[in-house]
């Protein structure tokens, strides 16, 4: 809150460390990267502690007119804070996850991850439209290298596909941004958030943004780059891709499309709902049929992201809060699941599900953690997944009971494919000799598993820590959408609540009241 420039510092630490990594030896590069990501994480924690919940919408703002046409404007609200926390939390774990697995060109690898971290923080805290776009697109370059250099056998194809798919979407968004800047005469995001674009222009702008963000998200049918990218990327690459990069699409939805084009969002809601419904069911079924572990989790990510989009477009407090919690939860859980795959991949060098079996016998600690994350992915109460799915489905139900119905089947299917995966990998007879020889988690892997598990449980047991900073921002978005919001088919009537006990009015209750029209 004081004048201390914490956001520029968080951008600078990984950037400087990235340059340093290029010039030091392999061993040193690992330590530099770990040190820098930990420092950034501590800075993030300081920022969270200093964040004034209920204070001004934009905090830690920095502004310098460095670039003439646009400015170096930074600042965060609660949503950005949470997503930055997610990024800085996952980063040190990614570095640790690649500690032994990456043996070639370690300096370059670490540099790419650190640049990635700078870019991710930059995307979430940019307050200038062009600055945002620059960070948004810049993420392609390090990810292209990470997949292409350290990926699996078919890495080149996956890297191309990732790069070109996402680039094609993004350039359309750039045209829309140019038109917006011409219309509103400013690149300042807080100003644009309250600018009323003409309704017919909104439709075009919305479609252009949608083209870009749907690919990033990814939504069906433009999700096909994701399974390839995930399967070929190194473990840490998948962790960061699933953990943070997939959140860029949803972040763009709630930061730009919904508040900036509320009328178009309401008109074209059916596209989002339609695609989300197809995605939930279709990708869940596809996941069920996979024989490659990473591909299975990649498809499950598409399904989860579809619930996020449906939740966001429910246009009410629960739906959006739930979608945001799924984003955070999926960030942690899918990163953890990819790491779980990475652990056994490092031992047996295959992702074929059938090559495993009976791991519960010789890797009990691993089996325990894998179980926890599987349950969190399914949405078992007490884990992070439950909170998000419950809230968002409650919100979706208010908007459209049919969408809620279809999305719920997706959750049932989700339980099916995750449990089926778990059964095939961890249970069963321990017959294969090479599988028998696999040792349980080592100290480094414990160090990664424990924080991930702790956060997944924390988010499941006391989600208020994560919801509180975002609540005000969600209320702002909901208020902005209210004039355009179509009537839902649920026709909820307010009940007659008994006098609330001193502590009885939970977070969900109050937001529920806000959501009912």
């Amino acid at each position, binding site marked *: 809150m004081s004048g201390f420039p914490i956001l520029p510092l968080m951008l600078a630490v990984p950037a400087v460390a990235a340059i340093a990594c290029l010039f030091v030896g392999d061993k040193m590069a690992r330590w530099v990267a770990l040190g820098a990501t930990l420092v950034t994480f501590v800075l993030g924690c300081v920022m969270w502690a200093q964040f004034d919940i209920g204070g001004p919408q934009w905090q830690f703002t920095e502004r310098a007119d460095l670039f*003439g046409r646009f400015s170096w404007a930074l600042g965060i609200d609660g949503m950005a804070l949470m997503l930055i926390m997610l990024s800085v939390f996952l980063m040190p774990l990614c570095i640790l996850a690649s500690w032994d697995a990456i043996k070639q060109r370690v300096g370059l690898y670490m540099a790419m991850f650190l640049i990635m971290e700078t870019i991710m923080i930059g995307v979430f805290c940019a307050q200038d439209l062009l600055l945002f776009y620059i960070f948004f697109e810049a993420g392609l370059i390090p990810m292209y290298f990470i997949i292409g250099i350290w990926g699996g056998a078919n890495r080149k194809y996956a890297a191309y596909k990732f790069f070109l798919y996402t680039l094609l979407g993004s350039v359309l968004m750039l045209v829309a941004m140019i038109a917006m800047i011409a219309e509103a005469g400013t690149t300042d995001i807080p100003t644009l958030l309250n600018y009323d674009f003409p309704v017919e222009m909104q439709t075009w702008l919305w479609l252009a943004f949608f083209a870009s963000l749907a690919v990033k998200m990814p939504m069906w049918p433009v999700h096909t780059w994701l399974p390839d990218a995930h399967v070929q990327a190194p473990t840490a690459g998948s962790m960061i891709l699933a953990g943070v990069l997939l959140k860029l699409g949803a972040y763009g939805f709630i930061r730009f499309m919904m508040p900036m084009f509320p009328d178009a969002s309401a008109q074209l809601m059916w596209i989002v709902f339609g695609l989300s419904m197809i995605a939930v069911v279709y990708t869940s079924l596809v996941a069920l049929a996979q024989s490659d572990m990473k591909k299975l989790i990649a498809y499950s990510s598409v399904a989860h992201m579809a619930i996020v989009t449906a939740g966001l477009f429910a246009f009410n407090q629960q739906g959006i809060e739930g979608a945001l919690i799924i984003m955070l939860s999926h960030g942690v859980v899918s990163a953890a699941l990819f790491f779980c795959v990475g652990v056994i991949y490092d031992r047996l060098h295959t992702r074929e599900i059938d090559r495993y079996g009976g791991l519960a016998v010789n890797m009990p600690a691993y089996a325990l953690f894998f179980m926890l994350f599987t349950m969190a992915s399914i949405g078992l109460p007490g884990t992070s997944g439950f909170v998000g799915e419950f809230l968002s489905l409650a919100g979706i139900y208010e908007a459209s009971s049919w969408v809620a119905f279809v999305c719920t089947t997706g959750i049932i299917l989700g339980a099916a494919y995750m449990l089926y995966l778990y059964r095939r990998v961890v249970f069963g007879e321990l017959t294969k000799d090479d599988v028998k020889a696999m040792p349980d988690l080592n100290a480094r892997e414990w160090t990664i598993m424990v924080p991930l598990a702790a956060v997944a449980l924390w988010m499941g047991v006391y989600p208020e820590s994560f919801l509180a900073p975002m609540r005000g921002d969600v209320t702002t978005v909901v208020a902005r959408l209210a004039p355009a919001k179509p009537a839902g088919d649920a026709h909820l009537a307010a009940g007659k609540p008994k006098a609330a006990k001193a502590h009885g009015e939970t977070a969900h209750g109050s937001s529920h009241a806000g959501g009912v029209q």
Partner: protein
Amino acid sequence: MTADLALIWPELILTIGGLITLMLGTFMGDRQVGLYQLSALLTLAAAAASVVALFGIETTVFSGTLSVDSFGGFAKLLIYAASFICIIIAPRFFNGGMRAEYPVLILFAALGMGIMASSRDLMTLYVGLELNSLAAYVLASFMRTDERSTEAGLKYFVLGALASGMLLYGISLLYGFTGTTDFAGIAKVMGGELNIGLIFGIVFVLAGLGFKISAVPFHMWTPDVYEGAPTPVTTFFASAPKVAAMALMTRVVIDAMGPAVGAWQQIIIFLALASIILGAVGAIGQKNIKRLLAYSSINNVGFMLVGLAAGTQQGVEGVLTYLLVYVVTTLGAFLVVLQLRDADGNQIESIPALAGLSQRRPGLAAAMAVFLFSLAGIPPLFGFWPKYLVFEAAVNANLVPLAVAGIVASVIGAFYYIAIIKTMYFDDKSDTEIPAGGGAIVEDAVITASALWLSVIGYLFIPVLAVVSASAAAVLF
């Protein structure tokens, strides 16, 4: 008349300096590389200094045939800087085969290009263009014992002559139907009713100029000439003449044909889209890095034309910024190509031989990656910024479909740029050894400086660039 001479110092310096360098070469012999090179470099530096000294003066000289203004000044500075670099890099490439004609020809070409950039009359336009072209034909076949080089020169000459013919035919039509060769006079007639003769004139003039900027469908010569010419000459072709021809085209379109927007705009839009798309598609499958960069230059010219098609001051500002960033990127990329030599010192031009370059020469590969990503216009590299400016100009001029089509086609272009990066970074090392080149500190310095500038640092220069390009573009409106 004599007062006018004081306003064309850059041209005078280049003429005299060129003649002195020629004399030095003739009397001191080709062995004195350092001497005539120094003389040429000093000439260019002095010419550039005189351009800076004349900055801010907006007038015309010699009965309105030549203009002295900041638009021409901006173009000339770029042209002189690019020529400067092309002279510096030559001796190491020719490796003892350097002759004094090389810097002399570049000086005369630079003189011609300066005249192109500041001409305000169809006659001066043609004189400047031919002075540049004749020097360029000889430069293309500079390695007279090399078959590819002589072939490139001949090809360039024949097609160049054809283009000059078309241009002259267009000029004669414009003169015939307007009664004047003066840009301002032509513009006055264009403001009225357009007859078929004028439209033919516009088409032929634009076709002739399209050849010089190598816009599709007048681009056929580019890949062959770029491949065949000696690399320093290719570097030159890809940088300075592009600036001159683009500046000339802008001047003709805005100054002379300005009122007849409807007549030229669709031609420019066609040239722009065709160049972007064909430049991108043609580059896929190229195995020679110089050919590939030729297609890349066609592609980039297409983006510049998007800015020109807008026909607004904003568009011209975009074109000028684009030219600057393009020249820096191209010089950097060709300098990297120059450094690619195998153990015997032979130039490496094949793309597959670059496999694994990032492990052999990490710095060089990183610089090349910066240049290629920048040419593709991927932020945060600075190549993004001029692309943004030209598309912004197009959108603001209500050419949204052009902007959308151009920007989508830019993704095709990204494909071949990232394909080279794939070769350098993802592929296993090729058999070709590429040892570190010794000695060329200047080359390394230029590569490093331009790569750094094109990475995020360039963005800090936007305010300066905006002021300079705006004052240059304002001259035409």
